[in-house]
């Protein structure tokens, strides 16, 4: 920064952390500025592929446990904004960019049928901004920067959900509901940050962690923690704060639902992990109590209540939305155990549930493309006319239940292991019981698709390849990660260890 110090020119590989954000960020205004309907999709896809490549390069650099720190504007942290990549968030970056790279080819046909052509440029611009926001939340090491990127992703998400209004006007109220809830969540989060700033005088996460550890617990810090947990809880859709989620997922355009279900709540969980384990420490008694007596019961409630509601839905998409809330319960259960195995289970489930739900929501989108809706009585019997789509839905469904050989089994298995390890065996029983509820709602879909007679006078063609291929990549990933368990478990365990090392892992 100063004139005296000799400057060492940075190379492009030093800039990877900022390029991760910059590529999708710049693509959004470029899409609007060029404004060509033919180029729009290609620009978005190229940007997404590039950021996927960058995420791979970043993960390769940090997989051995090292940390990359990047200073924005040359200002050194804790004063300046710092981007900080370690094994945990490199893993999330890879998930988010990977999903967006698969969703975009899928989105092309789906968006064509669901959104009028004149809005396509703005749609893809909003999509890239949403991607930028999610990546920014993940990569940044500055607590206030998390809030800024959270707002970028949230605002564009509201717009994306409202795009469903060309099919169903209720998308507008769904987006509005989410706008209100999301804004309250973001406000709580920023109030929490304000209190932390008041108590410590810093916003850099690593610095925050040190100063909180130094001064110990006081009322301001405890209130800050509570505000941050409630604020992120609204974004994650922790059980009693989940009301926006089913409507938002049901009425959003299919491609948007796939992307949000697989990434947005996962990134919010990552932020919760960052704050509960890196900024605050598990040795902070208030946090242990909050997790054990508030988050844990709600997680169990979510596993059962949301699954029950899912069973009685008549709309495939809405059923999946409720099942998402139940699955979030498993992740929170893993987190609130506060052990390495529990955390490993939560992070593995975060990934596995991401690919499982992406498969299923892609399936719904394809069925809706052909039949014009996702109600059970609209899609009944489509298993015969659309065998490939339906088969992938079955694979996704099995993974959602947690049948051995699929991705969903691995994370639930580790979760059961974690509860037994902690000696809380009744929880293991509850996990198995709630999985049985998943059997019921998944079976209902299989019954509708294969055993009911198709509606009279309908003869659906199989979906276009541009949608089938991304869906099958996801479906095969569900099986691959169910068999090659080392990959996810090693990465999740590394991430869990990094998180539990707390501030030592940060500095």
């Amino acid at each position, binding site marked *: 920064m100063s004139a005296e110090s000799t400057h060492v020119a940075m190379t492009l590989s030093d*800039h990877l952390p900022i390029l991760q954000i910059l590529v999708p960020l710049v693509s959004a205004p*470029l899409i*609007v500025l060029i404004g060509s309907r033919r180029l729009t999709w290609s620009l978005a896809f190229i940007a997404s592929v590039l950021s996927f490549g960058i995420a791979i390069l970043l993960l390769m650099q940090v997989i051995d446990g090292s940390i990359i720190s990047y200073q924005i504007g040359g200002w050194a942290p804790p004063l300046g904004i710092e981007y900080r990549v370690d094994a945990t968030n490199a893993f999330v970056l890879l998930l988010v960019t990977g999903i967006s790279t698969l969703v975009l080819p899928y989105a092309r046909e789906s968006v064509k049928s669901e959104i009028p052509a004149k809005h396509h440029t703005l749609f893809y*611009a909003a999509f890239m901004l949403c991607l930028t926001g999610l990546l920014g939340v993940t990569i940044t090491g500055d607590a206030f920067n998390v809030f800024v990127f959270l707002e970028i992703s949230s605002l564009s998400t509201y717009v994306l959900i409202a795009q469903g209004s060309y099919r169903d006007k209720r998308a507008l109220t769904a987006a509005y509901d989410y706008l209100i809830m999301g804004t309250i969540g973001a406000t709580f989060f920023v109030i929490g940050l304000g209190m932390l700033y008041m108590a410590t005088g810093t916003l850099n996460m690593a610095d925050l962690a040190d100063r909180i550890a130094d001064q110990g617990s006081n009322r301001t810090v405890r209130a800050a923690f509570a505000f941050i947990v409630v604020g992120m809880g609204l974004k994650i859709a922790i059980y009693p704060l989940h009301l926006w989620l089913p409507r938002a997922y049901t009425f959003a355009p299919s491609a948007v639902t796939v992307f949000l279900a697989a990434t947005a709540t996962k990134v919010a969980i990552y932020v919760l992990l960052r704050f509960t384990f890196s900024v605050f420490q598990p040795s902070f008694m208030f946090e242990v109590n909050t997790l054990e007596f508030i988050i844990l019961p709600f997680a169990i409630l979510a596993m059962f209540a949301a699954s029950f509601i899912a069973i009685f839905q008549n709309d495939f998409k809405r059923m999946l939305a409720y099942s998402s809330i139940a699955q979030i319960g498993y992740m929170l259960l893993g987190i609130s155990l506060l052990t390495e195995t529990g955390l490993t289970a939560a992070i593995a489930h975060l990934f596995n549930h991401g690919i499982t739900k992406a498969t299923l929501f892609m399936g719904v989108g394809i069925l809706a493309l052909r039949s014009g809706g996702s109600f059970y009585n609209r899609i009944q019997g489509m298993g015969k006319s659309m065998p490939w789509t339906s088969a992938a839905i079955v694979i996704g469904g099995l993974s959602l239940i947690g049948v051995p050989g699929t991705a969903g089994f691995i994370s639930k298995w580790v979760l059961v292991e974690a509860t037994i390890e902690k000696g809380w065996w009744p929880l293991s029983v509850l996990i198995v019981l709630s999985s049985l509820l998943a059997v019921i709602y998944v079976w209902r879909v299989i019954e509708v698709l294969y055993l009911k007679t198709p509606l009279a006078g309908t003869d659906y063609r199989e979906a276009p390849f541009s949608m089938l291929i991304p869906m099958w990549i996801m479906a095969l990933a569900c099986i691959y990660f169910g068999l090659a368990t080392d990959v996810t478990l090693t990465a999740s365990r590394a991430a869990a260890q990094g998180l539990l090392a707390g501030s030592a892992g940060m500095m």
Partner: protein
Amino acid sequence: MRHHLILRVITKLLVGAIMLFAFYVQFHGDFSPGGGFQAGVIMAVAFILYGLVFSLHNVQQVFPPWLVHKLVALGVLIYAGTGIVSLFLGYSFLDYGAFTPDHPSHGQHYGIFAVELGVGITVTAVMVAIYYAFAGRPPRLSDEEW
């Protein structure tokens, strides 16, 4: 529609002055209170005031909606582009020292200048776009029915 004579005359007088003040706030921002955001809002006020008094149709001929949309994107690109230039000069993103390596504080002036210009353009365009979006909705009652 020949009523509101005073309003129309005063508006015509004011629009130019408002724009001039916007430029002052924009370009004097690094020495006095102000900057891109405030200047952008003031600049947008000039268009909004013109639209309120002389109808939406007239202001949209001066500042067409398609141009507004492009400018929203252009401002962001100017901001990010400044950072990208510094990145290609071998410094970190938005490190303005890159523009004059021998004398970093000059570089910071140039950098802030470019970035604030981007902010100003985007804020102007966004404010006007919001005004167009609201004013562009067909009214339930026409003016004559009041």
